[in-house]
Every structure is written in structure tokens, then in C-alpha cells.
């Protein structure tokens, strides 16, 4: 009652003032977008909105923006906890023009963001597919991220956070497929699962501790994934006095890259199990104190020196 009275009063006030203010509708926990929608109102099921960016403004933190039918829904910056979900209704497209970032996550320290079922296209001119610059966590599921000049997924938080990328394709990227490089004292915990990264100019996956002073090791696990036809396969690096890194690669393949695996810098560790590393210009690249541990169950096409044996337990 109080709330209704307040809304009526506010509406009356705006009429009385003759000012075109936003209608004072309550935000929803679920909003809808459609190719036939319009960016006005509260984005309910019967009156969906047209873009992700507008729908988010009508959605409570922690809520969902859901896709009703196929369309392009525009580039978006996400500043709060939101899930954007296309559950197989057709293309939910996000394109970006020259030099731009298609989806930017710049959310609060406790905010969880989820992206599902999106087709994120740079059409050869956009710079970055998805950039995570702040937030508690980012989940990317069943997305296609293609044709960017810079990076496919760029994880660059300055406070400790986590991410998971699964059932996703990342291809035709100018530099890194997935680039994880926290800064400040940020730690990171990441999972890459059932992801194919192909035709990236730089490393398909790179976990870097070079900008982080985290006292706990930065960790990313890669499982059931493929890195192929790229500048490098699975890499991790760090620098002296920066965070240690652990990149664990299991049941995955690194094929036809510049170097298949890399561990560069003191306290940069790559752990490899049940994986295939074939057809790379060099099987491994290890320098400045980096280490690649093997569980003795991997297939290479050359005899690799310098692998450190680790026991299965």
C-alpha cells in the first residue's frame, strides 16, 4: 500500500510538473527482449524490450534478462549482477563496430554475471568479445565468440574473482583466445571446459600473473578443450615478485600452434595430463624458471626434454 501510494504520488508529481521523467515502475527480477520489442517500459513478457542494455536498466540486481526470439541485441556494459539467457530460441546476437568491446562486465565486487547462448561477433573489426574488468564471477556458457581483432575473452579484474567458460567456441581472434591477467592484488580461479579455441594470433589460452601481487597462486583448469592453429596453445607466465600461476590442462589437445605449451617465469607452472600435443612448431616453451609437470600419460609427436614428472595419486 505504501509503495503503491508512493508510486501514485510520484506519477502525479511528474504529471503536475510536466516533466518527462522515467515512469517510476519497479524493476523486475526477470525481463524479456525480443526482435519485435521496443526500449520502453518494464520489459515484461507481453511488452518485451529491444536491447540488452535497456533491459538491464529494468532488471533488479541478481535478475535475468531472457531472450524471447532471434535478433541482434546490441553491445552491452554490465554493471551489476545479471544473467543474460538465450535458451535455444535462435540467434541472440551481439555485434560491435571497429575497435569496440562487445560485452563489458564492470560489476561490483559481489556481483555474479552469467552469459548463455549468445553469438558474439566482431565481424573482423571489433576488438574484444567479452571483457571482465570487475565483479565476483563470470560464467560464459554455450556462446560463440568470433572474428575479433584483439581478444576473445579478456579476464582482467583488479580484485579477486572467478570465471568459468564452457561449451563455447572462440575462433578467428587477432591475439589471445582467452587472456587471464588480474592486476593489483587480485587472485583468480578459473575453469575452461569443452571450449574450442582456434585460429588465434597469439596464445589460445594464457594465464598471466605478471600484473598481480596475489599471495595465493592464480589457478585455471582447462578440461576437454582444444587449442589449435594459434600463435601458442596453453600458456602461463609470470614475473619475479608477482603472483605464482598454476594452469592445469587435462583431456585436452594442443594442435598446430606456435608452441603447444608454455610456462614462462618463476613460479609459472603448467600441469598436463591425458592430453595430446602434436604438430606444434615447438612442443613446449619453458623459460625463466617456469615448469611443466607431466603425469606421464600424454601423447607428443616429439621427445620432450625438461618435463617434470609428477605422480598420479
Amino acid at each position, binding site marked *: 500500500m505504501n509503495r503503491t501510494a508512493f508510486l501514485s504520488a510520484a506519477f502525479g508529481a511528474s504529471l503536475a510538473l510536466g516533466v518527462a521523467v522515467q515512469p517510476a515502475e519497479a524493476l523486475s527480477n526477470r525481463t524479456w527482449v525480443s*526482435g*519485435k520489442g521496443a526500449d520502453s517500459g518494464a520489459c515484461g513478457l507481453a511488452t518485451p524490450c529491444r536491447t540488452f542494455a535497456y533491459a538491464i536498466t529494468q532488471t533488479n540486481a541478481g535478475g535475468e534478462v531472457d531472450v524471447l526470439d*532471434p*535478433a*541482434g541485441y546490441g553491445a552491452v556494459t554490465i554493471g551489476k549482477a545479471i544473467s543474460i539467457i*538465450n535458451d*535455444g*530460441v*535462435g*540467434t*541472440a*546476437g551481439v*555485434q560491435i563496430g571497429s575497435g569496440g568491446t562487445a560485452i563489458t562486465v564492470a560489476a561490483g565486487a559481489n556481483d555474479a554475471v552469467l552469459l548463455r*547462448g549468445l*553469438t558474439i*561477433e566482431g*565481424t*573482423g*573489426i571489433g576488438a574484444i568479445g567479452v571483457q571482465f574488468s570487475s565483479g565476483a564471477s563470470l560464467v560464459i556458457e554455450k556462446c*560463440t565468440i*568470433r*572474428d575479433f581483432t584483439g581478444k576473445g575473452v579478456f579476464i582482467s579484474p583488479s580484485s579477486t574473482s572467478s570465471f568459468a567458460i564452457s561449451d563455447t*567456441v572462440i*575462433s*578467428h581472434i587477432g591475439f589471445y583466445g582467452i587472456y587471464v591477467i588480474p592486476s593489483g592484488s587480485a587472485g583468480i580461479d578459473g575453469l575452461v571446459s569443452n571450449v*574450442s579455441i*582456434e*585460429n588465434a594470433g597469439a596464445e589460445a589460452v594464457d594465464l598471466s600473473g605478471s600484473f598481480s601481487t596475489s599471495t595465493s597462486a592464480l589457478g585455471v583448469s582447462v578440461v*576437454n578443450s*582444444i587449442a*589449435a*592453429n594459434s600463435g601458442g596453445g596453453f600458456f602461463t607466465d609470470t614475473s619475479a615478485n608477482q603472483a605464482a600461476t598454476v594452469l592445469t590442462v587435462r*583431456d585436452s*589437445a594442443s*594442435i*598446430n600452434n606456435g608452441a603447444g605449451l608454455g610456462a614462462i617465469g618463476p613460479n609459472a607452472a603448467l600441469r598436463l595430463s*591425458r592430453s*595430446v600435443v*602434436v*604438430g606444434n612448431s615447438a612442443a613446449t616453451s619453458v623459460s625463466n624458471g617456469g615448469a611443466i609437470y*607431466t603425469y*606421464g*600419460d*600424454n*601423447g*607428443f*609427436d616429439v*621427445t*620432450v626434454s625438461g*618435463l617434470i614428472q609428477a605422480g598420479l595419486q
Partner: protein
Amino acid sequence: MIRSRFLGAATIAALIFAVSPAHALLSRAWVSGHGTDAAGCGAPGAPCRTFQYVHDNIIAPGGEIDVLDPAGYGAVIITKGISIVNNDVGEAGVQSSSGAVGMTISAGEGDAVYLKGLTFSVSATGIRFNSGASLEVEDCHFITVGGIDFLPTTTSSLSVRHSSFAFSVRGINMAPQAGGSVNANIETVRIVGEGISGSFGIRLDGSQATSSTPSMATVVYSRQIYDSAGFSAIGSNGGAAQMNLIIDNSSASGDTVGIAATGAGAVVRLYQAIVTNSSSRVLTQNGAQIITYGNNVMDGPAAGMTSAPLQ
């Protein structure tokens, strides 16, 4: 300077002689079974009807054609970088007249082609790739005599993911032509053959290749049954370049020969593979190699393989 003067002149000429309607090419255009191929089509509210019309008239290079609803969208010849995306709206079909190829790709050297969610029902070859930087085929289904013929004349890459091939005589045929080489990744693919003479599931065939650049095809998490040869590699013309086929966590069964390698430079690697119920599990001929990491499952002995250690 000369170049910008020339462009300036060309621009002025274009302005003077601008007779065609001023529709800029789109980076996204829609097709629908209810659409119409007419100038200016492509918005979600005014979709076009066929892939070919959009390719020829509406979409910019690097752009994306999206499928709005289920329909047959016709055979198509692709000559530029493009994406065609059906994200689960229902059947997005490609059919062709009897004996004709469903989709032909003759794109430029730097062009990337991406296909998602298409069904090819063709009495000949589903996709024939002649040229382009790369082809990605995802969530596609082939009810075809020949699934994919990948025949590049430069170094080109092929990715096939989450796709199936039924009633197939030739599943995925990668045969680099003069000057060409192949980098292929085939994952989570299912191929059901017809069991007839000369049939194969996945084949890397170097017999037409003249380049010294090696070719490499990796098959991961894939299943193949009932062909004359399941997975096979054929050495390059004169043995100039290696033809490398990697069978990783994949299976061949019910074949005349499960895994075949023929000719100098043909190298097949078996890692956590399964080869069962085949008349001959492996066949190595004429200087080719089949390398085992000792972690494969077969239903009997297989002679002629070379061992490589796990590391």
C-alpha cells in the same frame, strides 16, 4: 597520393553514376521461410528468403546471416567471408538439384566461413570447399553421399564440431590440391557409413598435394561406423609433405579396415582410440606409419604399428 586520388575519382564517379538503390550492405541479415528476396530485405521484420540472395545482395563481407524460423534455404555458392547461423530455431535446410553440390565455397584467401545449425540433404556432396582461409562447421547434419569435400589450394583450416553424417559414403574428405595444405580439427562428430566399397569416414588424402607444407587433421571425441575405411591417411604426391592424422579419444567400428595409412608421408597417431568389429583393425602400406601410444582399445591383435611412449 596516387591511390587516394584514384579513390577520390572513383568516389566522385560513384556519386555521379549512383543508379542502384543506396542500400548499404548489412553486417547482420535475417532469412525466414516467410521472407521475400527483395531489395532492402534482411531486417528481422522484413527477412529475406534464401541464403544465396542475402549473400549476393545484402550482407557485407564478414557479416552474419541469421535464421529466423524453420525452412529450406536453398543451395548456395559462397565467395566471401560470412557466417550463417541457425541457433536451434528448427530445420534450416540446404538441398540441391539431383547430383549437385549443396554448398560451394570459393572464397578469398583471407576469408573465414562459419556455418552453424544447417541440415544438408543432398544426393551428392554437402559442402565443397575450394578456397578460403577457413571453414567452421558446427551443429550441422549431413544426409549426403559425400559430407564435406575440403580441397584447398592454399593453407586452409577446417573445423567440424558437434555434427553428424548419415547414409554417408564419403564422410569428411580432406584433399589438399596443388599448392594447398590442411589444418583440421574434427570434434564430437558421428559418422554412420553405408558399408560399401570405397567408402570412408574421415580421410586425409595427400595424393593431389604438391606443397611441402605438412597437413594435419585431428579427430577428437568422435565416432565412426560401417565404412570400407574408418579413419585413413594417404601420403602426399611424391611424399613431399607429411599427411598427419591424429585419432584422439575416438572410435572406429564395423569397418573393412578401421585405421588405414597408405603411402610415404602418411602418419596416423592413435591416442586412447577404440577400434572394434572391423575385418582388419589397422592397415599400413607403402611406407606409411601408424603410431600407437599404447593406450588404445582393440578387440584383437593389430600388426604393423609403431610404438611411441607416453610422456
